[in-house]
């Protein structure tokens, strides 16, 4: 027990009640670790109530890029009995250690547990609010994380130029070391975190939703309209704080129906416009999204998925809105969909979606997901001058403009004039002729239906990954399951399975290269967080032999479990 294992990777979880500062603790640990050159990823789970209720927040710290929230917990901090009872089974059986709040918890059975009276120690440090620091000190000690790094983090954080700063810093440092001492005395240790290998480039630490917002803003977002809904609310809040600039407009409106029609108006008027919502709001936007498709109006709709259907599981993880996003409205509609798989991709897609909307003159959907939107991760600091702000072709000519012509020989789209300039037309949700006037003659409906689907081919520059093309079996995750699928994939590869990897941040239209490759495969295995296997279903529509590995628990996959399920699925399908 006293022989220290050196590890590249630790998961630290704080479990207790909502309102006990669990997220703050995990975030502080993530910040401190990333300042020391480690990679981090946080993950939280909480009920949909404001205070109290069982909640937890964790951080995974690693010497390399973190792909998922991991299988087990190496250091578990539990603040009450319920937390102990419900999280202890996640503790790493080998070296995991549980720190419990000695006042509120009596651990059952034997194990690597020790109690700490953080409140008392905080008081003794001279700062009743430093209980979190006591715990952080204990945690750091358990994984041999240098206290000095946390101390420097504390100094930065509390150096706010106020009179009491010095004292607060001092007491926090005392609290930190008193926690460390308890951990040392306990005799437990989890191992030693291997030295960090800091990347060469600058980094930022940011959540998925903030990255998406920042990406959109740096690509020229002009107007944002939204209505609060978990887990998309943080995008609205971000915009209200940051999109406060000349000629920009941001507003909390009265419903999602308003929001979708607002972005249609703004998009029509020549601006880059966006709204973000979750499932219930997406459903309400159905009619409006159909209008944007029909009248060909650039706008971006972000769906930060949570558990469904209906009000569903507002603070849980699920990837079950794919059918609803791909076919969001009545009539022949199939929307372009971008689904980020990492926080970095959230940034990229925030801008790309806006650019695509401009380029193909229509609505684009971004599908994020609770666990991705909410987690913090340190990523490479984006270079803003590299971000493209693509604008629609709006070349005006005469009045009575043929805005809705058929596609050109090379797929070019007729220009979309901007109000105030030459070349007025009517953007029409009824079927129409070239200038937008209503007509229901067969020839126009045929021509315009083909135009609407044809122009999707302009959206051909999204990121994709194809690896190990020689294998017949391929893993193809989408969206937020990318990281965990990658971890599972690497496990299976290291077990000498001959499988390939395909990933596309764009689900519609699928890049040609991806589609061609997929069609060659004997089996395409899709890990996804829904019941119906929605993405594999859509791929089967398109002639791909895809099967899903599903999970519908409200939680993300765990890497080892997923690897096992994939192995199972391969066996099954190869047997048939």
């Amino acid at each position, binding site marked *: 027990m006293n022989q220290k294992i050196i590890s590249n990777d630790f998961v630290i979880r704080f479990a207790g009640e909502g309102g006990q500062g669990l997220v703050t603790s995990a975030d502080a640990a993530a910040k401190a670790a990333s300042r020391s050159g480690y990679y981090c990823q946080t993950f939280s789970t909480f009920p949909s109530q404001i205070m109290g209720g069982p909640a937890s927040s964790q951080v995974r710290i690693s010497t390399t890029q973190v792909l998922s929230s991991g299988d087990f917990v190496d250091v578990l901090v539990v603040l009450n009995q319920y937390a102990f009872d419900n999280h202890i089974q996640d503790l790493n059986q080998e070296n995991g250690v549980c720190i419990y709040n000695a006042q509120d918890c009596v651990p059952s059975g034997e194990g690597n547990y020790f109690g700490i009276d953080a409140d008392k120690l905080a008081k003794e440090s001279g700062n009743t609010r430093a209980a979190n620091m006591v715990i952080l000190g204990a945690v750091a000690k358990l994984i041999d994380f240098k206290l000095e790094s946390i101390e420097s983090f504390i100094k930065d954080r509390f150096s706010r130029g106020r009179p009491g700063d010095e004292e607060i810093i001092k007491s926090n440092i005392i609290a930190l070391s008193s926690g460390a001492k308890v951990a040392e005395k306990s005799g437990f240790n989890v191992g030693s975190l291997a030295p960090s290998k800091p990347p060469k480039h600058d980094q*930022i630490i940011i959540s998925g939703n903030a990255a998406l917002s920042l990406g959109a*803003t740096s690509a020229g977002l002009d107007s944002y309209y939204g209505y609060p809904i978990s887990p998309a609310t943080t995008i609205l809040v971000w915009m209200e704080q940051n999109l*406060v*600039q000349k000629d920009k407009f941001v507003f909390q409106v009265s419903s999602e129906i308003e929001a979708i029609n607002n972005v249609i*108006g703004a998009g029509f008027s020549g601006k880059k416009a966006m709204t973000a919502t979750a499932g219930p709001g997406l459903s309400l936007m159905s009619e409006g999204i159909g209008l944007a498709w029909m009248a060909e109006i650039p706008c971006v709709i972000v769906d930060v998925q949570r558990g469904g259907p209906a009000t569903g599981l507002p603070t849980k993880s699920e990837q079950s809105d794919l059918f609803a996003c791909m076919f969001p409205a009545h009539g022949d509609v199939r929307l372009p969909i971008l689904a980020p798989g990492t926080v970095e991709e959230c940034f990229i897609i925030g801008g790309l979606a806006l650019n695509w909307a401009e380029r193909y003159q229509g609505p684009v959907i971004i599908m994020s997901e609770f666990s991705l939107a909410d987690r913090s991760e340190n990523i490479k600091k984006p270079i803003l001058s590299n971000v493209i702000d693509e604008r629609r072709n709006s070349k005006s000519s005469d009045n009575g403009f043929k805005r809705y012509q058929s596609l050109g020989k090379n797929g070019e789209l007729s220009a979309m*004039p901007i109000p*105030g300039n030459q070349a007025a037309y009517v953007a029409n949700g009824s079927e129409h002729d070239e200038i937008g*006037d*209503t*007509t229901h003659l067969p020839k126009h409906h045929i021509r315009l239906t083909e135009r609407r689907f044809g122009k999707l081919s302009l959206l051909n520059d999204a990121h994709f990954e194809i690896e190990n093309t020689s294998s017949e079996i391929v893993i193809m995750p989408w969206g937020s399951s990318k990281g965990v699928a990658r971890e599972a994939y690497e496990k299976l590869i290291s077990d000498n399975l001959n499988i390939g990897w395909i990933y596309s941040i764009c689900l519609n239209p699928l890049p040609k290269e991806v589609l061609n490759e997929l069609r060659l495969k004997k089996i395409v295995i899709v890990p996804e967080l829904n019941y119906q296997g929605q993405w594999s279903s859509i791929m089967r529509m398109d002639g791909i032999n895809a099967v899903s590995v599903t999970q519908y628990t409200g939680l993300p996959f765990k890497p080892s479990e997923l690897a096992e399920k994939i192995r199972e699925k391969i066996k099954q399908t190869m047997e048939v």
Partner: protein
Amino acid sequence: MSERNQEYDFKWCPGCGDFGVKRALEMAINTFTEEFEIPRTSNVIVAGIGCSGNMVHLIDGEQPFGIHGIHGRSLPIAFGISSSRPDLNTIVVAGDGDFLSIGGEHIAPSAYRNPNITCIVMDNGVYGLTKGQSSPTSETGQITTSTPFGKLERKMNPLELYLTYGVSFIASHYSSKPKLLSDFILEAMKHKGMSIVHVQSPCTTYNDTYDILKGDRKKGIPGTAFIIDENHDPTDYDKAKALVAQEGVPLGLIYRKEPATINELQNKLIMDNPSKNVEDILSSYSI
């Protein structure tokens, strides 16, 4: 039929009130465009779904921009336009079903914001395009295709609602005097903030109210439409309330005030607070 689309287009029935509204709107657009020396394409017409909404395709002469959206959503579409592009003259054209029933939810929140939008509501007390069902402004007891035994619920008083919501410019008129009507539409366009011109525009096919509005001189029956007393002070909220509580259809300006528009308020907020650029925002995430 429009000049532009000979092949197939929408036509109003003979005598439809919307013809008069169209003429009035054309005149107002012409004058507004000339007076403010803006390009004619700086006018944007946002149309609802209904016979009335077809207005957007039928404007004569050089075309304004237009958007013919979905039923009931002209106001939120217009808000998206007007808040993003306050330089445009954003005009809503919609029917009573579109604006007051399915779209009714959007009036109050818009009024609280006071965006610079001019709404022209063509009230014929019926759903014309779907062939004569009852609307919020149909009379109680009225027989329509959807109320074969008479409409049961109370009739809406839209003017009273607009006032209560705090719409900052409210006029009421009818379609029979396009020139007069156009003056109020023009005033509404000039008004900085949310304006509504509520027009009685009879549906000759399903709810012909011309006689009721104008009365019958020969028979000595007075019309329900009456010109607003010239002493009426449209800046007096209480007087406006009293006016719309009266029986009948007032013709003229009911109410006007000039609170800041939402864009003015947001501009002030931007002036008052340090403007953020993307570099600064990005840096706040540094580790």
